[in-house]
Structures are given as structure tokens and as C-alpha cells.
């Protein structure tokens, strides 16, 4: 890395990486940067970029806070002169920095930022420089509703969501919309404040009173694990817990056996044979299991998505990269074949994976594309 940057500015292009390296989401962010670094080394070694260009990754920490993210992106653009930005995994953060990257004309690829407004503004117009590699919350909410009501036949749901998160609110909204259409009933709908609240017993006591058969948790790993643990300590039984793509393996450390039997919508399954080479390389390089596998794989694949766009653009001009990203078609990546929808900048028709917690592991359970109501 050091030698590459010394050998001359023309051969190196800087790519910013926006990640939470400290704070509540540090586990996700650190995994993403490590995985992206792995991809960058492979991309540079294979000479994928045109004209002998090499990528230099510039990671910035946004500490799970939007104001830090805005500063980080400003520095990436003004100081580091990056040609593109990968990350973050947070919808709220990507929505906060979207005006910045779009004004500066620097393409950005969200990794696990699933809120629709990451790539499409309030007026329904696509943000020209904002992209993502994951599926969206409307889709994820629909998958959750479909799987709970139709596949598991659980028709009485309670929701406990995070009012301070765009991701959580969006997923909750799209779940409710679809769940009702699939014949389900919402018996309790309660909220908490993420990043501040760690005690959910008050809400859980109210939820227990409503006697749901499924509790929907559209949140992030730490909170979901704490909720499930505290539910067990309050003696809540005979309820299935379901959540979105915030699942992470560290939840087992927090909630232990209480996690058994819960279902999680996800982007990828850690057991997918196609992903094993990545896990091996990651382990070899960092001597660490890639526990936050969704972030690892999407961070890794996002770098390849970007590298492919630079290759097809034939230059590292941000505008040219943007145009190439928009025209990505049938690009074979590790976890999926990606075609970008030019109208929304979302990948088209990705299957969702359902994970089931069993035997202290989240195992692959099902692959779904929900039926229309």
C-alpha cells in the first residue's frame, strides 16, 4: 500500500470506505473494512482496473453517528479526493450523506443500507450517485410478513422497533402493510430508542399482555439479542422471534439459548458453498472468523462491483464510474448475480434467505421470493 502510493499519484485511485469502526456498530464496520481490504488486494493483484490502476482504500470511522459520517465523507471528497465511496451499512447514515455525494458527483455504494430513501429521494426521484448492493426494506418487510403469516402461519404479531433508526421504522412500516394483506393482525406495536435504551422489560411486559404468537424485531443485533434475553427472563414463552438482516453471530454471546428457534431474513447464508473460499481467505489473512458474515460478504462484493464499473468505464473518472454502475448487468459476484435497476439503483430480483437459529448456529432454512397477495 505504502509503496503504491509513493510510486506516483497517477497509478493509484483512492476509494473511501465509510464504516463504524468504534461505537455500537463497530463489529459490523470492522468486518466490512477488513473484507474490503481483502478484495482490494485481490483486485490490485489481478490487474482488473484499466491502465495498471491500483485501488487504495481510505477507511473512515463514523462511530455509528450521522454527524461523524457527514464529516468523514466531506474529508474523503475534499482532502483525499476519492473517486468513489463504498459503505456504509447504515441507511440513516447513507441518507444523511446522500446530498453531499450527489452534489460532489462521487458515486457511493451502500452495503447493507436497505431503506428505499438511500437511493431514491423523498420525491421518488433516483439519486444519481447513490447505489446499493443489498435488497431493500419494502422487499424485506414483505418477506418477513409473508414468511410469518403464510409459511409459519403465525397471525398475531407484536412489534418492538427502534424510533431513532430509519431502517427500523421502514422495515416496521412495510411489515405491517404486508402482514395485514396476508391476513395477520398486529396486537402490539411498541418502540424504544436505539443506542440509548438497554432495558426493554417495560415494553416486553406490555407485549406479553397482548399474547402474540410472533414478536417482530426490525432492529440491530445488540438490541435484538437483549430483547430476546430479557423476554426470557420475564418468562415469555411460546412465542417465535423474527427479525430482519440485523442478525449477527455475536447475538449468541448475549442471548445464549434464548435465541434458539428464532428466524431471521437475510441477504446471504453463511453455509452457501459459493461463499466458503471467502471465509477461508478471511480467516487466513486476519486469523479471525468472519462472524458478521453479511457485512463481510457485501463489503467484499461491493468492492468488486465498483472495480467492474471502473474497468468498464475505462477510467477512474467519477462520472464515468457512475454511468457504468448504472448499467451493471448480470455481473457475477460471490453471493449473487447483480443487475442494477437504473430507475432505483437497487439490484433487481434478489432472493432472500431465511436463517433459523438451531444448535447455537444460524442455519440456512429457506430461500424465498414472496408470492403476491
Amino acid at each position, binding site marked *: 500500500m505504502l509503496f503504491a502510493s509513493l510510486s506516483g499519484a497517477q497509478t493509484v485511485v483512492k476509494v473511501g470506505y465509510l464504516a463504524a469502526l*468504534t461505537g455500537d456498530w463497530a463489529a459490523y464496520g470492522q468486518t466490512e473494512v477488513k473484507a474490503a481490504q481483502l478484495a482490494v488486494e485481490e483486485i490490485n493483484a489481478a490487474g482488473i482496473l484499466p491502465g495498471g490502476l491500483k485501488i487504495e482504500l481510505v477507511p473512515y470511522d463514523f462511530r455509528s453517528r450521522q454527524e461523524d459520517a457527514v464529516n468523514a465523507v466531506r474529508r474523503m471528497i475534499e482532502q483525499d479526493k476519492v473517486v468513489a465511496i463504498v459503505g456504509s451499512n447504515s441507511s440513516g447514515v447513507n441518507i444523511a450523506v446522500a446530498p453531499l455525494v450527489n452534489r460532489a458527483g462521487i458515486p457511493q455504494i451502500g452495503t447493507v443500507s436497505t431503506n428505499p430513501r438511500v437511493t431514491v429521494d423523498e420525491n421518488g426521484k433516483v439519486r444519481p450517485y447513490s447505489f446499493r448492493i443489498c435488497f431493500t426494506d419494502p422487499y424485506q418487510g414483505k418477506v418477513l410478513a409473508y414468511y410469518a403469516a403464510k409459511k409459519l402461519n403465525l397471525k398475531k404479531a407484536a412489534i418492538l422497533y427502534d424510533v431513532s433508526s430509519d431502517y427500523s421504522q421502514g422495515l416496521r412500516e412495510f411489515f405491517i402493510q404486508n402482514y395485514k394483506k396476508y391476513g395477520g393482525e398486529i396486537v402490539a406495536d411498541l418502540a424504544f430508542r436505539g443506542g440509548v435504551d438497554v432495558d426493554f422489560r417495560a415494553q416486553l411486559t406490555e407485549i406479553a399482555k397482548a399474547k402474540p404468537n410472533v414478536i417482530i424485531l426490525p432492529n440491530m443485533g445488540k438490541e435484538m439479542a437483549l430483547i430476546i434475553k430479557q423476554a426470557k427472563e420475564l418468562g415469555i414463552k411460546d412465542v417465535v422471534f423474527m427479525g430482519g438482516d440485523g442478525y449477527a453471530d455475536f447475538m449468541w454471546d448475549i442471548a445464549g439459548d434464548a435465541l434458539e428457534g428464532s428466524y431471521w431474513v437475510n441477504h446471504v447464508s453463511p453455509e452457501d458453498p459459493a461463499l466458503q473460499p471467502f471465509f477461508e481467505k478471511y480467516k487466513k489473512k486476519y486469523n479471525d472468523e468472519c462472524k458478521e458474515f453479511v457485512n463481510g460478504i457485501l463489503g467484499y462484493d461491493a468492492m468488486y462491483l465498483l472495480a467492474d464499473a471502473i474497468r468498464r468505464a475505462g477510467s477512474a473518472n467519477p462520472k464515468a464510474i457512475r454511468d457504468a454502475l448504472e448499467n451493471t448487468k448480470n455481473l457475477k459476484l460471490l453471493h449473487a448475480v447483480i443487475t442494477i435497476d437504473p430507475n432505483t439503483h437497487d439490484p433487481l430480483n434478489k432472493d432472500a434467505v431465511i436463517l433459523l437459529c438451531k444448535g447455537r448456529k444460524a442455519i440456512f432454512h429457506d430461500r424465498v421470493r414472496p408470492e403476491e397477495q
Partner: protein
Amino acid sequence: MESFIQQLINGLSLGSVYALIAVGYSLVYSILLFSNFAHGGFLVTGGYICYYALISTGNNIWISGLLALCGAGLTAIITERLAYKPIRERTSVTLYLLIASMGMSIVIENFWVIMAGGRFRAIPPVLPTYPFKMGNLTISSFDLLVFGITILLLFGLEFFLQKTKWGLAIRAAAYDLRVAALMGVNVNKLISIVFFLAGLLAAVSGIFLSVRYTLYPQLGFITIKAFVAAVVGGLGSLRGAVLGSLILGTAEMLTAGFISSQLRDIVVFGLLVLTLLLRPTGLLGKAVSEKV
């Protein structure tokens, strides 16, 4: 009604953890007249020492607990010696101590970010957390444990303050530090003892909080609520700190359960503002001017 009582139980259990933290605040405040915001750092330090000791001793909670208590107590003493003593010796304006404590809280938090990483860690299951039923009410065995140990520790502290020579010195210093010094009390030693005790209590709450909410470097953030509790109860008054904590814990749970969890913090800080408006010294506090 049942759910009201259940929320009350939840509130008391939360309040008893606040109480341990708030008493630590009050103890330091009563001597040095400043709020030590590094208290959350002592708490996190206790949590991490316990965590690593548990792992390396094969889950021996007694040894690990003891190490955590001593470790956090020493951290508190070192923090005082490094950051507060030099200021204390140069000026009598306590505002500088307050600012230094904010800095120290960030220093300790980041120390653990570097040492342990930002990841969430769970204390191995050495403390019982299983629920048991009383009619339709559910009580967690952990809540009873926390409640019991909190009461035990607070009585122990009260005993120390009332019945021992150093306890007498601390009470005298709380009344007037300078006069106590003139009467032959070794002030530096006394302050170290006070900080050690505060660190000890912080470590206990750190272990409890890590068991309940997992361990991460920012866990000390919760001390802000305990600080509010200490102010509501009356800064400098140990009984006030306990009372304020129990009130705050129950108020939080009842608000979140029956009104809205979004209003939880508004109620907490509303209580703070109300206290400052109606009774600035808190429920059981003495006016600071009486002390001077």
C-alpha cells in the same frame, strides 16, 4: 393491576442498579463537591476485569469479582492522583475537576476500545438469571440477587461511615474538608479511600450491568441516568441517592410501559428540571451554602 406491579418490580430492579452508581457519585461529591463523570469508566473497567478474569479462572466468580472490585477501586485512585489531585492542589474551583472528569471518562472508554475492541461481550453465565413465577408475576432471580447485594453493600457502606475512624474522617471531611485537614486528617489518603470505595461500588454495578446488558466500552453511558438520580435525591446524600434511583427506575418503567417508551427520557430529564426548579438541593440534600 398485575402489569402495574410487574412494571414496579422491573422499575425497582433497574433502580437498585442506579442506586449503586448514584451512591458512588454522591460519595465523591460529598467530599470534593464535584460530579465525577469518570465514574462510568470505573464501571466499565470493573466489567472488563471481571470478564477477563472469568475467562482465565474458568468462571470463578468469587476471584473474578474480587479482582474486578480491586481493579476498579485502583483505577479510581489512579484517576484521582493523575487527573484531579494536581488540579485540586492548584485551585479550589471545582469546575476544573468536573471538566477533567469528563476528559478522564473519554480516556478510560477509549482505553477499553483499544484493549478489548468495540465488540459486545457477554459475561459467562455465572450468575443465575432464570425467572420464577409468583401468581401471574414473573421475577428474575437475577433481580433478587441485584436487589439483595445492593442493600447489603449500602448497609456495609453506612456501617463503615458511621462506625469506623476513617468513616468519621470522611463524614467530617464531607462537612468541611479544610477544617478536617486542620484537625489532622490526612486528606490525600482520605480522598483515595473515598475514590476506592466509589470504584468498588462502580465495579459491582459494572458486573451487574454487563450480565444484564452485555459489556462494551460505552456501557458507562448509563451513569448519566444514575447521575440524574443522585441529583434528584440530593447530591452528597447517600440515602438521597438511593431514594432518587428507586424513584427514577420506577418512573422510567411506568412511563415506558403505560405511556410511551419514547417519553422515557423526557420524563427522566423532566424530573431533573423539576427538582432543580422546586428543590435545587434534591429530596434529601443539604444546601451547599450550609457547608461553607
